[in-house]
C-alpha cells in the first residue's frame, strides 16, 4: 500500500530537478505585436526629428480620405488592405528615415500574407486606387508633410492593431 506512494514521491522529487517545458503560443500574434511596436517607435523617432510645432495639425481626419484614418479592424482581410495602402504611400516617399519604416511594414505584410494563404482568405480588391494615385501625384513635391501625415495615421493604426490581435484569427 505504501510502496506506490513512496515510489511516486521519489519520482516527483526527481522531476523537480527537471525544467518545465513551456506551453506553445500563437507565434503570429506575438510577432505582429513586436513588429507593430517597433514601427510605432520608429515613427515617433522620425517625427520627432522633424521638430514640428506641437500646435500644427497636418491633415484633418476629414481631409485626405485616401490615406486610411480611423479605419475599423475587421479581420485579416481588412488589415491587409489598410496596410497595403500605407505601404503604397511610403514607397512614394524619398529615401531616408522613412525607408526603414517601409521595410518593417513590408516584413509585417509578408507574415500576414502567409497567414492569409494558410487560412485561404481571398484578398480584398483595393478601393480608391485612382484617388490615391492622384493624391500621391499631386503631393509628390511635398514629401515631408505627406510622410508626416501617413506615418501619423499608420502609428494610430498600429496601436489599434495591437489592441485587436484577435482579429488575426478570422478572414
Amino acid at each position: 500500500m505504501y510502496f506506490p506512494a513512496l515510489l511516486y514521491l521519489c519520482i516527483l522529487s526527481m522531476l523537480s530537478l527537471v525544467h518545465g517545458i513551456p506551453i506553445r503560443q500563437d507565434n503570429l500574434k506575438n510577432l505582429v505585436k513586436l513588429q507593430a511596436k517597433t514601427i510605432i517607435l520608429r515613427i515617433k523617432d522620425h517625427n520627432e526629428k522633424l521638430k514640428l510645432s506641437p500646435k500644427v495639425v497636418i491633415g484633418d481626419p476629414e481631409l485626405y480620405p485616401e490615406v486610411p484614418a480611423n479605419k475599423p479592424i475587421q479581420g485579416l482581410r481588412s488589415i491587409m488592405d489598410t496596410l497595403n495602402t500605407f505601404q503604397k504611400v511610403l514607397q512614394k516617399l524619398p529615401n531616408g528615415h522613412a525607408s526603414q519604416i517601409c521595410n518593417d511594414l513590408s516584413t509585417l505584410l509578408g507574415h500576414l500574407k502567409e497567414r492569409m494563404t494558410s487560412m485561404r482568405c481571398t484578398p480584398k480588391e483595393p478601393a480608391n486606387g485612382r484617388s490615391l494615385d492622384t493624391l500621391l501625384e499631386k503631393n509628390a513635391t511635398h514629401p515631408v508633410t505627406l510622410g508626416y501625415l501617413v506615418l501619423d495615421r499608420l502609428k494610430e493604426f498600429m496601436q489599434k492593431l495591437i489592441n485587436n490581435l484577435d482579429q488575426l484569427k478570422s478572414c
Partner: protein
Amino acid sequence: MLVLLVNFITISRGRPDPPVNLHYNVTAEGEVLFKWSDTQPDSDAINYEIRYSSNSSLQQWEMVKVKGRSWVPLNDLSSGIRYMVQVRCQSYFHYWSEWSQPFYLTLDVSYIPAEVFTTPGSKVTVYAVFHNRSWSASKAVWMLNGQVKIPESQYRVINEQVSSVTVTVDEPGFDTLMCCHQWGERFKCIIAYAKIYTEGMFNADITCQSKNSVVDTMSCEWNKSAWAQVRLLYRQYTSMCETISEIESNEENEENMSLVKECPSGAGDHRECTLRNLSLFSCYKIWLEVEGGRGKVRSFPVYVAPIDHVKPSPPSVLEATTMPNKTLSVSWRRPHLPVYDMQYELRFVDLRGMANTQWKVISPLLETQAEIQLEESCVQFKVEVRCRRLNGTGYWSDWSMSYTSAVYNRKAPEMGPDFWRIIQEDTARGVTNVTLIFKDDVYVHSTQLQMLAVCIFLGACYLIIQCLSHLSSNGRFYGSEEFTLYPVFVDGEGEPVRYTATRGDPAAYILLLIIAFLSVVLFVTLLMSQNQMRKLMWKDVPNPNNCSWAKGMDFRQIDTMESLFPHSEGLTACPLLLVSESICEVEIIEKPHPVTLEHEKDKVLMYNSGDKTTTGSAVLADSSEPLSLEASTAAATPETSGQSSVTYSTVLLSDQPSLLRKQQESLSSSSDEGNFSANNSDISGSFPGGLWDLENHVCPDSANPRHSSSYNSVEEFSETSDQDYEASESTGVAKDLYYLDVNEEEKDEEEIEETQGEHEKKEIVMRVDARPLLEGKNSTSVNSNNVSHSIPLYLPQFRTESINPP
C-alpha cells in the same frame, strides 16, 4: 473654286484632335483658371467645351463652353473634392473632337508662387488661397519650416480667401512656408507648402572618416534641414587638397558634371553616406546639393584626403606584467594599415580600486612598449591602449580590449608586507599564539590568485596544512589549485613547499547528495515492499510439498498426476468437514509386542482401525462424508492410492518437550496449504517428525511405547528427509506426532504440554480426536471406550514410511 478647295481640305482632315496639356493656375485673387493647349499650333478649333464632375461614375457633368480661347475660370469648385475635368474642341466645320484625357484636381490651399528662388537678404512674398469657403483669410497663420510662427505683422489679407506673408531669408538654404487656419489653440494645415530656395552655400558640417583602418572607404555625415532633400556629390582630384581648395576659392569654375559622382545612398532625407573604392592619397571634393534648387543651393564643399581621415584599428595582442622593481611593463602590436608612424596612448587602473577609480593615462608613446613606474609592486592593473597618426591629421582609434597585468614572481619578494604582531602567551598550556595583521594583501604563491592570508612557519607542519585549508576555503575557485609556500626562517629562506588544495563545486555536491538520498529512499522502499510485491506478483499457489497428501510426489511426472487420480470415475468430491460436524473416530489398539514394519500389517491395522471405527462409533453426521475414513479404507496401499493411507499412532512422550511446543505452535498457526516460503519452518505441517513412522509408533522402544518417528513434511521430506532418516535411525529418537486440530475452541498449543503424559502409557491408542491424547495423563488413558464424539478434525494424510527401527 477657292471655297471648294478649303472645304476639301477640311473634309480630308477629319475631326480635330482633343486638347492636351490640361492644367490649372490660381491667381493671387483666388481665381482658378483651367487651361489647355491644342495638339497643333495651327489648329482651327474655335470652340471648346469643358466638362467636370465630382463623381465620374454618375456622369453628372457640369458643362462650360468657351469660344476663342483656351482657358476658363472654374470658381465653383469646392474644396477637398476630387474633380475630373475634360475638354473637347470644335473645328470650323463643327466637328467636335473626342474628349481629352481626364484631368483630376483637388483644391484645398494653393500657394502663389509655389516655389521661390531668392537671394540672401531679399524679401519674399507668398500668397495663400483658401479654397475652402469655411476658412477665412483673416484667420490665416503662417509657419516657417513648420516650427516658427511668423508674426502677424508680416501678414496681409487680400480678400476673404487670400492671405499673404512677406519674409526675409538671410542665409542660403532651403525653407518652407505653411499657411494654416486657426483652429482653437491649434493650427489646421494641409500637406502642401511653399518652398523658398535661397541661393548660395550653406554650412552642412560634413565630416568623413575611414573606420577601422578600412582605408578605401569613407563614411561622411552632415547636418541639414529636415525639409530639404539633398544629394551628396563628390569629385576626385589628383593634386593635394590644399592646392585644390586654394584654386577653387580664387576662381569660380563651373563644375564639370562629367567628373562629378553622386553617393548612391546619400540622396533624400539621409544624413550620412559611404564612399567606396577611394584612393587613399587622392583629394576628394565633397558637397551637398538641395534637390529642386537647380544647383544653386548647395553646401560648402570639403576637401578630403582619405589618408587624413583614417580612424585606425585599436592595437592588439597586449601583454602587461607587474615587475618586482615596481614597474608595469606593457607591450602591444600596432595595426598594419595605415603604414604611417603612429603614436599611442596608454591607460591603466588598479584592479583593487573602487568602481569610480580614475584611469591613469600615459601619453604620448612612440613605441609599441612602455615601462611605467609604480608606487608599489605585486599589484595587478587593467591596461588599455589606443593609437593614431603621429604626424598629420587623423582620428584616435578606439581603446583596445582590456588586459589584466600579470605579477611577475621569479623569487620571493624583496620586501615583505607591512604588518603588526600580536603575541599571546598561554603559560599554562605552554602555547604561544602569534597573530599577524597585514596592512595589504600579499601573495603567497606564484599564481595570479591573490590570497588574503599568509602561512606562518613556526616549525610545525600542522600549521602549514591548516593555513592552506583556510586559504582554500576562502578561495574563489573550484577544482584543484596548487599552492607553493616559501618558508622564511630566522636564518634565511627555506625550500618551497608545494601543496594541492581541492574544492568542489558546492552546487554539484548538493545535487549529488539529493540524488543519493533519493536513491537510498527508493532502495529502502523496494526492500520494505518486497512482501507486497510478492503478493502482487506471485499467485497464491499452494506448495504441494506442504500438503500431506502430496508428499513425495513429483508433479512434473505424468504418472504422478495419474496416481493422484487413479479412478476413472473420479474421486468423490467431498467438501471439507465443517467444524461442527463430527467424523468417525478411529481407535487403534496396539498390541504389547512390537509390530513389524510391513505394509500389509499396517494395512490390517488400518483396516482394523477402520472397522473398529465403523463399528465402535456412531457419531457420523448424516451429511458428513467420512473423508478421512474413506481415505483410510481406500488407500490401503501407497501404491494404489494417490491419497496416502491414513495411519494413526499414539502420541508418545518426547525428549524435547520444548521443541514440541514450539513446533506445535508453528503447526497451529499456519495452514496446511500455504505459500512457498523460504522459511519453511513457518509453514504448517513443517515440524520435526512430520512423517509418521509406523514402526516407531509401534514402540520400537519399549520404554516409551508412545515414541513415534515423524519427519518434516516439507524440508525433511524434500531435502533432508534422508538426513533425518539417518538421524533418527542412528539416534533412535522418537519424534512425536501431531494432529492438526481445526476446532476453534481448543488450541493445540495447550495440548502439547500434556503430551508428555502419554509416554507412560503402554497402550498405544490412536484417536482421531487427538485432544484427549494431548490433554493430559487422564486424557491419554485412552481406550476404545473413550472415544470423543464432539470434536471433528481435519486429518492430514500421511504416507507410510518404511524406517528401520534403531
